[in-house]
């Protein structure tokens, strides 16, 4: 079936450093969404990307949607301790309406 792959599974980052998490689908997506889940919390919606090649920024977070609409990335600059949590990408295909979540990237920030 349709799958959305996400790497890396874990990311240890020194405070102030940058990191990127990647999301890939074997099929073309109609849109991709990103969620953040803090430890002990529930997923919180961050952004949705719909257009090919789209780039959106939220302060230190930059989200990209690939030209082929099969991959996406989340780049965080100058990581802070508030960035701790698991970041999930979730894709939807043109022919399948359900949101398919990636495995998530668990981010640990070292002060």
């Amino acid at each position, binding site marked *: *079936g349709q799958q959305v792959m996400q790497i890396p599974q874990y990311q240890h980052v020194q405070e102030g450093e940058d990191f990127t998490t990647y999301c890939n689908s074997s099929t073309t997506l*109609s*849109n991709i*969404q990103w969620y953040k889940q803090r430890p002990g*919390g*529930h*997923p*919180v*919606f961050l952004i*949705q990307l719909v257009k090919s090649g789209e780039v959106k920024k939220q302060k230190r977070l930059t989200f990209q949607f690939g030209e082929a609409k099969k991959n996406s990335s989340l780049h965080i600059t100058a990581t802070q301790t508030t960035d701790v949590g698991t970041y*999930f990408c*979730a894709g*939807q295909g043109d022919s399948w*309406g*359900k*949101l398919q*979540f*990636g*495995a*998530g990237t*668990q981010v640990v920030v070292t002060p």
Partner: protein
Amino acid sequence: SAVISQKPSRDICQRGTSLTIQCQVDSQVTMMFWYRQQPGQSLTLIATANQGSEATYESGFVIDKFPISRPNLTFSTLTVSNMSPEDSSIYLCSVGRDVYNEQFFGPGTRLTVL
């Protein structure tokens, strides 16, 4: 965004019993979903709760095990039936304006089956 509450927030149950989880939204929503999340794992969609009709279940989930009700546009229940330890998980409801828009999640129900 919508404000979503779930009851109970957590429960410990004996195998063979059933638990009904409630999801209440502070405004009318078109889409309501139920997910399962094992600790440290990703989210798996159980079903889409349809108002006034039977829920739409994903592969691997059946109505006899996970009956769902949605009597109106602000409320839904998920029952986990005849529980076994493998059902221990976090169950989350989410809502959305339509199937292709962002989803807002409830706080979750942490279920432990002994």
